[in-house]
């Protein structure tokens, strides 16, 4: 099982804060999960794919990475604190 969390505007776009997915038999990756979960919003022009930030097990990643069973992935918009 892969836990996928959404923060900021990405949570609005998918209408959820968290989903759990069975890991794909052929393996998964950050980009593949992004396209699966946010592909509709990207195709509809609601968000650009490069505006979707990602983390794997709470470490931000700009690059595609393999995702395995038990991993926690998050998709979010750019940070805005302070």
């Amino acid at each position: 099982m892969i836990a996928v969390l959404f923060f900021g505007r990405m949570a609005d776009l998918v209408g959820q804060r968290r989903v759990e997915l069975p890991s794909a038999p052929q393996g998964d990756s950050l980009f593949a999960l992004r396209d699966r979960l946010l592909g509709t919003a990207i195709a509809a022009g609601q968000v650009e794919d490069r505006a979707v930030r990602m983390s794997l097990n709470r470490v931000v990643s700009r690059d595609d990475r393999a995702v395995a069973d038990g991993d926690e992935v998050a998709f979010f918009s750019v940070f805005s604190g302070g």
Partner: protein
Amino acid sequence: MNIRLLEHPFDAAEAHAGFVNAHGAFGAIASFIGVVRATAAGDAVAHLYLDWYPGMTEASIEAIADAAVVRFGVAALAIWHRCGRVEAGQPVVFVAAASPHRRAAFEAVDYAMDRLKSEAAFWKREVGPGLDRWVEPTKGDTEDLERWNQS
């Protein structure tokens, strides 16, 4: 270091007094308190909602605090940051640094704030009458951060 991620309101004057009591002996203390403005770009703001990622948000603040301590050699640093719903007029962030020399304390606070605006794992939403929008860092925030890469 004193890092706090707070889901409930805090008293900034109390935070400041506590820091001065604990670290005043170093001789120089600089601090910053950020308060939620009641207006943004001409719109009335009732509250902010700061979305956060438990675990990652704390780690992002700690990384900024660590970098400020190393870069400016301050003796003590505090960062208190609200998360969740923060009403207009309430403090959202408190940063303080103590050092034997004032310049290091000023710069550590300034640096920590510039990085918090763009690199702390928060997602800020402005909510008011007829207003509900996510806020992204401004060009000014990016330029503020760039200053530290040049010096």
